[in-house]
């Protein structure tokens, strides 16, 4: 099956960096470079004339900030996605880019590996959009997943390990009628308090444990954990 090429526009005022990006794109079999813009105004013109599907957008440009381009209606009309590139210390702008639905954001100094991954993901994203004629929930989820940075959602990402989990669960299986506070679990298992909390809350979420509030004489109520009846 013949793949169509994806048109890419680079918006970057630093010539050397723009050339490096261009090289990266031209090496990719599925991407085609349609232009390099070195200013906001230039970017506007090239967006209009060349209709790219993807734009690598630098934030600091001689005539303004790249972030202002992200919410531009021109992008929506052209159906153009943005990979936003900015300095690592500019976290607030990143948050703005997230809000405006940038496909991805890469921090400077740019890691080529990270940029390549991002481009690869976009190619997949564009490809799937084109291939799937019928949209069902699974397709949408998959697309959304690609846009949402491809994070693994297995147990590992929740920081739950089987060994530790069974250690905690064993404690409750032993004394199923007993209410445990975090401190008691800590002293029994030897885990750190924050880790203990994570495991306990995981168990609550999984329905293994339930929570009771213990109202003491002074201060705030304490949270007690108890094994759910099987």
């Amino acid at each position, binding site marked *: 099956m013949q793949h169509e090429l994806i048109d890419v526009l680079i918006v970057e005022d630093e010539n050397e960096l723009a050339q490096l990006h261009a090289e990266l794109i031209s090496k990719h079999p599925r991407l085609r470079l349609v232009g390099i813009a070195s200013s906001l105004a230039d970017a506007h013109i090239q967006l209009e004339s060349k209709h790219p599907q993807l734009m690598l957008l630098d934030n600091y440009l001689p005539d303004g900030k790249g972030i202002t381009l992200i919410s531009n209606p021109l992008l929506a009309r052209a159906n153009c996605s943005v990979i936003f590139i900015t300095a690592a210390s500019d976290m607030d702008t*990143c*948050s703005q880019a997230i809000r405006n639905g940038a496909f991805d954001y890469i921090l400077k100094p740019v*890691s080529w590996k990270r940029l390549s991954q991002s481009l690869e993901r976009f190619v997949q994203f564009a490809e799937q959009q084109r291939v799937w004629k019928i949209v069902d929930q699974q397709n949408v989820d998959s697309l959304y997943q690609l846009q949402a940075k491809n994070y693994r959602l297995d147990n590992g990402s929740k920081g739950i390990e089987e060994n530790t989990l069974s250690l905690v669960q064993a404690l409750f299986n032993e004394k199923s009628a007993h209410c445990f506070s975090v401190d008691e679990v800590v002293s029994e298992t030897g885990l750190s*308090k924050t880790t203990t*909390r994570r495991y306990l809350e995981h168990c609550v979420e999984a329905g293994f444990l339930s929570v009771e509030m213990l109202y003491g004489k002074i201060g705030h109520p*304490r949270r007690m954990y108890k094994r759910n009846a099987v």
Partner: protein
Amino acid sequence: MKVSFQIKLFVSLMAFFSVLFALLGGYYYAEVGKQLYQEMSGRAKIQAEEIAIIPTLRNEVEQKDIKAIHNFMQKIAERSDASFIVIGDNRGQHLFHSVFSDRVGTTLVGGDNAEVLQGKSITTIRKGGLGISLRSKAPIINDAGKVVGIVSVGYLTSYLDTITVNKVVNILIAAVLLLIALFIFSWFFTRSIKKQIFSLEPREIGLLVRQQKAMMESIYEGVIAIDDNLRIEVINQAARKLLGLSQPARELRGQLISQVIAPVPFFTLHTMLEKDTHDEICHFNELTVIASRVRIMLEDSLQGWVITFRDRNEIDSLSAQLSQVKRYVDNLRIMRHEQLNRMTTLSGLLHMGRYDEAIGYIQAQSEHAQELLDFISSRFSSPTLCGLLLGKSARAREKGVELRFDPACRMDKPFIPLPEAELISIIGNLLDNAIEATQRAPLPHEPVEVLIKLNELELIIEVADQGVGIKPEIRERIFERGITTKTRGDHGIGLYLIESYVTQTGGSIEVADNTPRGVIFSLFIPATGTARHPAQELEDTDYAT
């Protein structure tokens, strides 16, 4: 040279009185002279007519008995104040002269006898033997009705003038004394005026009034001046706008303050008399304001108060802007600092020809941040929360503290029971506290652990630091307003806010000691908010189970 207001007022007062006195004096002088002449001519006439009807004299004149006339008249003349008394016969010859006895036998001087000889009394001013005189002549008529002689009683004008002058001199002396009294009075009067108007010139006062008016209207704060009866004297445009008063200022003037602003403790007479106040937070007609009140004293007696107030929301937004600016400055400083460090390291590596390490170093610079960015943006759906966490993380790093996000972090949909602004406030405050506590702990700084997790049941926020911890003496009171462990800046508010937000949503807070040191704050906020949406509670319980 400019003459001061006091001198001007004094000089004009004096000039006015002097002219007034001169006019009055002139008028009086003329009037007195005229009156004296009238009075004296009457007197002369009566005397002359009285003398003319004395029977003895009539006989003696008829018989021209000069000796007898002389003896008789001498006695009368001695008792009279007239300058002269003259008796003449019906041919105009002197029969008697009270001053010059040698004139007897000579003709009367003046030539005004014709009318008298016909039987009429006359009064004339003529030059006679003694000089100019006012004199009255009366005919002496015998029993047969025939004019037999003339009586002439006269007053010299010089004599009359002396009387007038004496009178005028007396008046003049009185006038001068009065003037001196006025002089002194004017001096003290102008001085007291001067003192009352704070030694200001009238032009300056005018300018002040204008300035005050312009000032009152130009300032952004509401200003109200009230008198000691709590009635409004001045109210400026801003005050009317803030209080939402549509009436013009002149209609409000004279109204009681309680008619315009609903009574609050700020306006009770007792507190107002007690002391002035500065930047007090209170409510004027449901508007939260920051108000100041100052007493106006004039010569130790209370004249009223001036009240100024500002909308508190404006001040809040101002301070928010200010902290924003501070943050930008802070960010710039961080960036510059980091950049310098990087360049130094990089140039060192390049100098030594360690190119691979240089590349590795450059890659490493963004690696951590990129990982964090990817992690946060994938775990939290709220851009605002992402921004907050990224920002706090960057700032913490600059302060030498690492924020370590728990791998279980996840909040992929909006949390309805808690408004986003409050969520941000809670997390921001917890992180700030943790970062500062860690900073104050001895090196090396342990990371601050953060868990933000939203599941079906509740939102869990846990921030654990290994900082200096909470002092035992304030342990039980940390959520009270004004209780703080911080040493700088604004504080004593953060935990108070957190607690009120969390309890309002029916959540709970646990505070525990971390090991080996520091504090763990754990917040649990149920996904079915109770306090905020009491009506929904029942329906939602069903749904959740």
